[in-house]
């Protein structure tokens, strides 16, 4: 059973490495943002695997947080790329 988890870990890490290559190389920012988002998901997998390996439930919060952050981060990047601004100014003031 342990071998399975270790194998899964290695696969995830390899995918992170591949994504990092895209992050570094990525011809334009959009490629990098997608790579970063995917890395976030891979990290979630990794943390989940670790909590099984270490037999602890303390890291489950991190999984939730990572999911939220990854989402917010991707949204922010996308908005930045599209509008050049993240928080739009309230013009009614």
């Amino acid at each position, binding site marked *: 059973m342990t071998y399975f988890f*270790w194998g899964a*870990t*290695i696969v995830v*890490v390899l995918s*992170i*490495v591949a994504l*990092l290559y895209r*992050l*570094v190389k990525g011809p334009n*920012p959009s490629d*990098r943002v997608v790579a*970063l988002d995917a*890395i*976030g998901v891979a*990290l979630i997998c*990794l*943390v989940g695997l*670790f909590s099984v390996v*270490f037999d*602890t439930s*303390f*890291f489950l*919060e*991190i999984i939730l*947080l*990572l999911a939220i*952050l990854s989402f*917010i*981060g991707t949204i*922010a*990047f996308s908005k*930045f790329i599209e509008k*050049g*601004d*993240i928080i739009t100014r309230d013009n009614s003031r």
Partner: protein
Amino acid sequence: MFQVFCIFIPILAALFMPFFFKKVRSIHTGWFVLIVPVFLVTFYATYVPIIVDGDSVISELDWIPSLGISFVSYLDGLSLLFSILISGIGALVVLYSIFYLNRTKEQLHNFYIYLLMFMSAMLGVVQSDNTITLYLFWELTSISSFLLIGYWYNRDKSRFGALKSMMITVAGGMLMLGGFVLLSIMGDTFSIRELISQAPELATNDLFLVALVLILLGAFTKSAQFPFYIWLPDAMEAPTPVSAYLHSATMVKAGIYLVARFTPIFAQSEVWIWLVAGIGLLTLFWGSFFAVKQTDLKGILAFSTVSQLGLIMSLLGVGAISYHVNGAEDTVFKYAAFAAIFHLINHATFKGSLFMIAGIVDHETGTRDIRKLGGLMGLMPISFTIALIGSFSMAGLPPFNGFLSKEMFFKAILSITQFDLFNFSTWSILFPIIAWIASVFTFIYSFYFVFRTFTGKLKVDQLPKKPHEAPMGMLISPLILAALVITIFFIPNLVADTFVKPAVMAIQPYLYSSPEEVNIHITAWHGIHSPELWMTVGVIILGLLMFLCLSKWQKMYNAFPAKLTLNHLYDFIIYDLCDQWIGRFSALYMTGSIRRYLSFMLSSMAIIVIGTLFIKDGFKISFEEASTIHVYQIILIIVLVIGTITTVFAKSRITSIVALGAVGYTVSLFFVVFNAPDLALTQLVIETISVALFLLAFYHLPKLKKEEERTRFRFSRAFVSVAVGAMVTLVALSAHSQKFIPSIAEYYKETVYSLAGGGNIVNVILVDYRGFDTLFEITVLGIAGMAIYGMIKLRLSRKEKNYENK
């Protein structure tokens, strides 16, 4: 107790002077001031009978008892003589200044506050037995002298002179403090009397010579000895009463006092004798030689003061010889210290009167330039008489007191030829020769001073004012001093018994046990065969000849190149060296570039830490305590390294930011691997926010300077960064390899539930065991938040308020 308070009477009186000046406009403030020195001189006069018997009086006021520092008023022959000089001439100078300074045009309260401050300081210097308080008062004389020289502060020359004297005397004072501290280390006391009683032991100490030289430097700077005399001629920009008081009679003699006071301690050393006698003689010659060059009346007097101080100093040096001669009280060496003190009194009288005359001439004709003056004898007969008396005394002619002290000076200097220790047998013949030549020049400038001013042709058209005799009030003080000049000639032994002998006893306490034992009797006539008589005759003859053809050879002074003078050296040091060169030096490394400062800081940090690690043999690697390394850790490290390298070598900034974010997330993954869920949570959130902030900052970069270029490679920077990285690695490895004490974490583990009632050990530590740290980290966050808000909202320098209000 009252005696020690007397030192502070002038400075206390000074507090009231602005009140008198502002409220009692009709009376010259000087009249109120006059009470103080008159009281003091009568008070100190009552001590004369005690001192004549060879006793001393002491009165103490504790200041910092735990450090052994106290105000001490110690009155023996030497300090009483100085105290009477200070308060006596102080009274005359105040009286003179009442008529010299205009009541309505001058800032009198300033003047008298400074003057009274100076009087206190000077009394403190001569009466202090504690070296630290002596230094305190010493600096106070420097400061008050600075204020008095710069009294007319709207003149450039006054400010220049004040600064110059301050620089030189304070530099000397600091060195002197060093000497005092060394003395107190050697003798374990601040008291001069106790130091004197330990004199033989002190002489064997290693620090003895250093202390000697440092204290002498203090004395030489204050007493305007070569080469530190240069401040004194520039100090002549002060009002004349100040020049008469500070720069002829009192302050410049503080150095003389110091040398006399410390003679019993340092006279053991040949360095002392050579330095004091040699520098004194050099100053004597130098001052008298250049006095003839001056064209300003006070300039002549300033150089003459320098020269006469050199004379006294050299006598004190010769007087120190008596410590090395058996039965000195019966030999000729005994004369030197006696002559020094006697000449000190005489110099104070005649130089004070001459300065006042120079002030009167300035006041009544509007100029002090000797080339414009002449023929004032008929218009100012009383001033002329006083000037004549003073100058003849200065030149050393009978029947004035200068004659007596000059004869004694020759006698003392001649005695040096009989001294055969310390290589004196080879060089000592130079001493009388230089002294004799200097006396010839003294004779010339004395005549130059009085006859160029008062005889010859009157040049009324060149004078700014129509000359006339000074008011009587202004003449009182110089008249009194001139009368003293003559009186001392006729009753020298009364003065000697009362003042000089007790002072000599203070300088040479090992030779005499009471003033009566000082077996010196002053005589004006030494007999036809005495060498000093013929030396004086020679001085008069040669001096007269040279004075008569002065106009022929005075031009040779212009031949001296201006670049080789000491003043030029001073200007070079202060303005070229300190202002420009040092400025250029700081400009070399203070470029304003933070990058450069950072490289300085980091490289020195790396050098110091790595150096210490290897010098102290602190570097050690052991992997005994290390835990096993797993594959996933290695993978994470590889990711981390790739991210870091990408950050450094990325072409565009956005790549760097993203790579930095990747590094941050990997670190949070590390926290996961190392079982730190709280840290991982926080790290994730913080990393996200900071990446967002970086992007924000990046977006707002000015368009013009957006450079999508990678950082240029510089070898020096690469070297510094590698060094810092190596430093941190080495320190971390060594620190991990040698642990001395076990961790306290066990305590937290055991008590987290039983004492604090929590399950999360990290959170319990943060808010319970060590809640204070958390409190102030919250504060830091709060401050950062407010600062950001303030930086964004508060724009005081912007004037586009309309834009903001839109």
